[in-house]
């Protein structure tokens, strides 16, 4: 068994290490380039397709629970007409971080296949656990997804209400807290907050 495997690896290596007999160098380089463009472009296009709100709410788990709740909030409908879609807050915009998040999200496909939260009751039972994942993610990346739009440097504290300005001045600007520490439940309903720090 082991010997067979070693033989197979040897044959593979011999083919790889020798120059091609029938194919020209030009065909291999140009062909390799074209194949690379096709593969890379296809990969990114497919990944971007999974990074849209239409993709997220194609599943009823998202459409009937979190999307319905988002609709009532300021991140869906507001005076200026700028709105956030699911990936704006839940997927990092940076490519490397995005790939890492996408790999993590493969577990959500597993959950979809096996119906982990396919009823409202199951979703409510898991709401605290799911919310904690997101709070933890935003706490560890210093609320990166909030800051993609809400920049601390561009925030004019004098235009905020005194109470908001005071909280931002004493806790946000000095870095002792990050957005999600105070702004929980701004886009979806909160889980049962008994026992959560600060509630």
């Amino acid at each position, binding site marked *: 068994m082991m010997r067979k495997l070693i033989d197979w690896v040897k044959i593979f290596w011999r083919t790889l290490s020798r120059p091609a007999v029938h194919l020209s160098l030009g065909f291999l380089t140009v062909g390799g380039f074209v194949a690379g463009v096709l593969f890379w472009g296809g990969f990114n296009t497919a990944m971007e397709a999974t990074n849209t709100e239409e993709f997220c709410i194609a599943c009823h788990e998202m459409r009937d629970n979190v999307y319905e709740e988002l609709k009532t*909030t*300021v991140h869906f409908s507001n005076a200026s007409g700028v709105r956030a879609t699911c990936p704006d807050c839940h997927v990092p915009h940076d490519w490397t971080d995005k790939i890492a998040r996408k790999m993590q999200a493969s577990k959500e496909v597993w959950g979809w296949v096996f119906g982990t939260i396919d009823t409202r009751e199951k979703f409510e039972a898991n709401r605290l656990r799911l919310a904690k994942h997101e709070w933890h993610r935003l706490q560890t990346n210093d609320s990166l997804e909030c800051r993609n739009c809400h920049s601390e440097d561009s925030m004019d504290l004098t235009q*905020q*209400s*005194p*109470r*908001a300005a*005071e*909280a931002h001045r004493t806790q946000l600007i000095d870095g002792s807290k990050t957005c999600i520490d105070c702004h929980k*439940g*701004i886009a979806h*309903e*909160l*889980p*049962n*907050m008994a026992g959560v720090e*600060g*509630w």
Partner: protein
Amino acid sequence: MRAASLCAACLLALAAFSTAAVSTVAVSTAAAQEAGAGLAHMRGAEPIGDRTEPPMMARTEDGAERRVRNYPEQPPTIPHEIEGYQLDLKANKCLSCHARRRTGESGAPMVSVTHYMDRDGQFLAAVSPRRYFCTQCHVPQQDARPPVENTFVDVDDLLSAAGGDADE
């Protein structure tokens, strides 16, 4: 055959009744219009069937001054915006600043100690369930003009007018 005639009789009775009802309503509306000609309605003088222009929504004061209570038992009004604050069995956004243990960090006034009392006057560790839903009594401050005139007189004004010694 008998069933059919019974049905017809029923229908006739129903028709008679509804005509009577309609005419009664018409009479009472006319009477009301005559009696309350000067009465202020929220929908103005437009007839019921017509569309009216709804009044502008009042803006909530955010970061406003605290308003003086009109009488000692008045629940204080909320001097800030509370739009989107979750207030249900799962979470109480108000208490995340106004609960006893949160006031140090938030700088918000603590909810009155009476809110920690049960109906037998015993103090509980947390806000009593009967006082949990803040907006049952407390409302945000709005720059809204009252639709009807109000003749309320502050108790101190009443006392000083009567010659008694008011609190101040």
